[in-house]
């Protein structure tokens, strides 16, 4: 069991337009905690920095400032060598996240071998089949030699989950894992994630823009707006009792068949006017400043 503590994460990108260079702050002092057995949903508008946080957590990008602290149960920090064994990710597009060239078996066997989970060829094969069965891809013997294009979107996403869990990951980052899937398939994949999380006591970061599934599948919701956390709290509280303007807007915008034609009728909300300098924390029950270093826990 592993937990992750992100403190004051900042990520700047440089934008070039001609010779001019401007700085874009994609993530601005975000602090988050992932603990075993809990799912934190990260919701926010497109371009608000959700994937950037995921990339930093999986070490595909370096943060400009801030720390990512990953610790085992007994408090020992996870070493660089073991980092990728502990923290794994499921990508958004199941049609792009598996290599069309390789078999399903290859995709799951590689992480097993890289992290030394299996020693012999037979051992690996047995583990691969076991992993496939865990994600309900049966008969595993028939699925393993197939190649990605022979599977449906939902099945591919299960393979992606199996690959992420293969090294024995305890922290799972799921970046919009179901948004590219047919609505009828989404629930199945999410339920699967939920079950695996309970079985392995995983710490899950569920990135999404779908409030409904965020509410139903997570314990805590963190709302990101233009790189800053603007609201956080238990899922039900955030959805049913939103405080920040942006969260309200988000909740309001969720499709509601009872009120057709809203798009045309509603006056557009001026989103430029929404500020992201304050954050409502449902746990503390108070407004705090967003985008500044967290005052409280200063580490030694």
């Amino acid at each position, binding site marked *: 069991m592993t937990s992750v503590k992100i403190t004051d994460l900042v990520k700047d990108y440089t934008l070039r337009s001609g010779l001019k260079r401007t700085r874009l702050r994609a993530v601005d002092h975000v602090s988050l905690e992932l603990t075993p057995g809990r799912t934190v949903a990260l919701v926010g508008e497109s371009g608000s920095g959700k994937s950037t946080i995921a990339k930093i957590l999986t070490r595909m990008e370096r943060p400009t400032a801030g720390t990512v602290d990953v610790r085992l149960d007994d408090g020992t920090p996870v070493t660089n060598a073991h980092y990728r064994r502990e923290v794994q990710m499921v990508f*958004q*597009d199941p049609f792009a*996240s598996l290599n*069309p060239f390789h078999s399903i078996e290859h995709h799951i066997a590689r*992480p097993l071998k*890289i*992290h030394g989970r299996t020693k012999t060829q037979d051992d690996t094969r047995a583990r691969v089949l076991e992993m496939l069965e865990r994600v309900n891809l049966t008969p595993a013997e028939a699925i393993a030699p197939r*190649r990605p294009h022979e599977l449906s979107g939902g099945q591919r996403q299960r393979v992606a989950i199996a690959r992420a869990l293969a*090294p024995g990951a305890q922290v799972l980052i799921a970046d919009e894992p179901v948004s590219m899937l047919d609505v009828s398939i989404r629930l199945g994949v999410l339920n699967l994630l939920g079950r695996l999380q309970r079985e392995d006591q995983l710490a899950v970061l569920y990135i999404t823009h779908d409030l409904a599934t965020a509410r139903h599948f997570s314990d805590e919701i963190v709302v990101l707006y233009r790189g800053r956390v603007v609201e956080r709290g238990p899922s039900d509280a955030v959805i049913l009792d939103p405080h920040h303007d942006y969260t309200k807007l988000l909740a309001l915008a969720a499709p509601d068949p009872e009120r057709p034609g809203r798009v045309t009728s509603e006056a557009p909300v001026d989103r430029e006017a929404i500020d992201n300098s304050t954050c409502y924390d449902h746990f503390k029950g108070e407004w705090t400043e967003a985008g500044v270093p967290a005052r409280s826990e200063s580490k030694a």
Partner: protein
Amino acid sequence: MTNLKPTSEPSVADSAELLAETSVETGRKPRAGWRMLVPTMTPWLAIGLGLIAAITLFGLIGPLFVGDPRTIRDMGLTPPSGEFWLGTTQTGQDVLAQLAYATRGSLQIGVIVGLLATALSAFFGIYGAYRGRVVDEGFSLFTNVFLVIPGLPLVIVISGFVPAESRGLWTIAIVLAVTSWAGSARVLRAQTLSVRNRDYVAASQVSGERPWRVIVVEILPNLLPVIASQFVFAVISAILGEAGLSFIGLGASNSSTLGTMLFYAQNGFALSLGAWWWFVPPGLIIALFGMGLSLVNFSIDEIINPKLKNLRLHRKRARRAARLERELAQASRRNGVPSQQAKPNQDKEIAR
């Protein structure tokens, strides 16, 4: 999943998937990815491979059976006969013997340049694009510089600059390779960029794969058809380029190639003396070898762009489909509404 994305350029990364779908369609399920890289045997591919094999064989073992090509006899310019199958040169040298050695020399140049140029383009194209940022920018700039340098004049200048004594096979090969890799590198860079931005590359990085393995195992297979086709093309152009250099007297001094043969034929006024047996065979070998490689290249193109293969496999059906569609269009242009009784007929025809 079934989208053809007509606005975007076809990239190899899409093609692996498409190809896989195609082969499922044709009933054979390739289990290993490698198998789909083998082109399907077509008459054209067979002819191409046949030509290449024959000429390569001639170049490899021909020299073992012929006499010394440099032996001078006092029987200049005799036409083909029982003794000398391809006649003799002005100085009475055996043309067949010369041809065998020259073919070997040209093949050597072709393969060496092909390998060197492919290695250079793969390094600068793939590695640069994979690393990104500064490395990519540096490599791109470097590639572009080489791309704008006009190849042939540079080759002529370099070859002319190097004194004839030290102008060996390797010098010429390196000069040719250095001036010819840039175009391929650019293509590879574009393809690598499109592959490396796919999530499966990120996924394998996240699962802890080492960079070189990511390149070799995850990216490279998707690029192999392109690289193979570039290699073939590099070989063709190297042989032609070397022939051109030798023809103007700037070729390798220590080895004989098809180009040097043509050079001596030209100097010996073979054309004006009507000694066709002196210049036709080397010319023919160059042409046939080029043709063989091009035919192979077409087959590789089908791997890069499986739609071509799909088209070929379904050509008959596609042609009928196109005809029916045209008829439908004409009918609708003529009488406004597609004739009702035409439909059952069409259905029958499709069913056949």
